[in-house]
């Protein structure tokens, strides 16, 4: 299974890969050099899921190469294509031209691939203009596909949680038994009397799945929590420690974050003051074996 990460030189591909999969903090990505040719890396995800990331250098010479001579090698068996655009690119037309050729190659060699376009470096655009700009870009990008393809467009920035939103969506589309996971999570959420249960991947803290029984107001909360916890994990690692569990109790809600299965963390939020913290921890421990089973089953299925 292949995940292809492409885009023009300097558009931020390696930076975002390093933040999501290698625990870089945003500021440290300045030190990264340009990627030469194809950098191939395996990322183990959810224990048994291996993401093949092809981080393709975006300099023109290489782009030409991909599209002509290396076409077969690179575009075969692609499940997901992530194409990164620099929002401030001076030469939109050329970017689009390459994007279109890539789409053609994908359509030819892996017609079922899902396409994710990330319009990156959104932090350079003033807050008020982002929405309008994204609408325009999305329409433009979707027009470029000549054959029908599943295409999703995100505006991203390494400086805020938008990066996590996009990558959560990408990873979500790659998990094989995600429906089953979701339904089990729903049952757990209802049985435990929780408002919301969120499942995170252990190493990246990307949101895999969630169940909500009480509507929450903040639609961006998943990626925000990912970002918040990840930042804290990084500050823990500075003092040679790893964060294990967290418990927040306030008069209006309580939240518990702890390691769940070997590959996940769970966050359980509830607002029922009659539920004692100890009870919720017992509930989480009780649910653990059944989710470990799902994980094992999907491991053998692969």
């Amino acid at each position, binding site marked *: 299974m292949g995940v292809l990460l492409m885009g023009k030189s300097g558009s931020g591909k390696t930076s975002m890969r390093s933040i999501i999969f290698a625990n870089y903090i945003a500021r440290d990505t300045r030190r990264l050099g340009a990627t030469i040719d194809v950098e191939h890396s395996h990322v183990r995800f959810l224990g048994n899921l291996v993401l093949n990331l092809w981080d393709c250098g975006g300099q023109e010479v290489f782009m030409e190469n991909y599209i002509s001579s290396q076409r077969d090698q690179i575009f075969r068996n692609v499940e997901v294509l992530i194409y990164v655009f620099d929002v401030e690119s001076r030469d939109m037309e050329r970017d689009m031209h390459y994007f279109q050729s890539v789409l053609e190659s994908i359509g030819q060699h892996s017609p079922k691939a899902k396409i994710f376009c990330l319009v990156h470096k959104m932090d350079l655009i003033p807050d008020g203009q982002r929405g309008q700009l994204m609408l325009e870009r999305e329409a433009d990008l979707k027009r470029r596909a000549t054959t029908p393809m599943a295409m999703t467009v995100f505006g991203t920035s390494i400086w805020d949680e938008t990066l996590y939103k996009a990558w959560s969506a990408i990873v979500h589309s790659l998990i094989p038994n995600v429906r089953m996971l979701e339904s089990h999570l729903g049952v757990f959420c209802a049985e435990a009397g929780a408002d919301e249960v969120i499942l995170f991947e252990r190493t990246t803290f990307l949101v895999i799945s969630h169940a909500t029984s*009480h*509507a929450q107001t903040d639609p961006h909360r998943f990626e*925000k929590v990912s970002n918040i916890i990840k930042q*804290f994990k990084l500050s823990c690692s500075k*003092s040679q420690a790893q964060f294990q569990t967290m418990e*927040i*109790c306030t008069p209006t809600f309580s939240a518990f974050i702890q390691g769940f299965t070997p590959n996940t963390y769970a966050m359980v939020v509830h607002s029922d003051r009659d539920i004692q913290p100890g009870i919720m921890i017992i509930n989480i421990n009780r649910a653990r074996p059944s989710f470990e089973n799902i994980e094992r089953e999907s491991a053998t299925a692969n």
Partner: protein
Amino acid sequence: MLVAGDPKSNVPQHAWMPLSSGQTAKPRLLVMGLRRSGKSSILNVVFNKMSPNETLFLESTSIMSRNDILSFLDFQLWDFPGNLELGDSTVDPGLLFQQCGALVFVIDAQDEYIGALRRLYEVIILAHRLNSTITFEVFIHKIDGLSDEHKIDTQRDIYQRLHDELAESNVHDVHLSFHLTSIYDHSIFEAFSKVIQKLIPQLPTLENLLNMLCSNTNVEKVFLFDTASKIYIATDSSPVDMQSYELCSDMIDVVMDISSIYARTQHAKATPSGYLSLQPPSTNGGSSNGRAQASSNAAVLEAAANGMARDPGLAIVEDDESHATIRLNNGQALYLRQVNQHLVLVSLLRDDSFERQGLIHYNFGCISEALNMVLMPESPATAAPHQLHI
């Protein structure tokens, strides 16, 4: 004109808020420095939660602005434009320095600093003559761009030059301290913590209380933080290492951020007006108004508005029942406890002490109560705090 709040004063209203007699009592912090030395960036990062990389977009400050910090002590921060001349007719140095507790002077360490030193020297001479109790805090700023060796050299050089010059002009007993700071790490918070601690009269009592907690329980290190700015007001007497400070201040971030996500729904129903309604009346409308008017700088205004938007979340955690626990895999744990609207206690302790979690809650409850008594002068401590249990 500064004190009386003369309405006919020729000074523009947005720059100079008239001070009522009550407000003059607040400890005042002046922030000065040459232009482009990073004063506004510092203030925005520390007090308005601006992220460091956003400060690139700040425009240079052209008028003097006053910020009232909605904190437990109501500090006033005066941000001076870098190009302001002290001889300028709009500023009365006498009034300015006489009410000032500390003067923060920012020096850009990445730039040629001889000019800044000359300016600092002038300021010290003038201010010291008018008010000899002022503490001068020199922030050697933007050190993120320097190597470790270079940092020490720069600090030594600045210290030496200033010292020589002051000795030459026969100025002695100036309270002078130096801090190496950068907005990209915790050093700026650490420096402000040290500056502000000097302005708190109850500091010895607070420290005593925290020492009592540490020596009588399993707590290894405890900080009393101002929640909004993450400046620590007091800590116990064991040495502060940067790592545990960072960890504790990051914990406040995590707890606040998660609270602001999940507390909002329920809270919106309870009190729609949110944060401000929970403020004591004295700090309510007046000072937030003051803050908004005090700065015509659009960026500062916007940051202040952002601060407001975050506040409903804060209000939730600000109930004295709120607490949070984080356990680490190295046998350590962090425990956070709300003291009042503005303050939290964050402590480091051994993970195994959580076997008796009830005791931890109880002990921190006692300490919070005692801290509140010390910090609220209008309600004198009538009852002795409860005994700590070990």
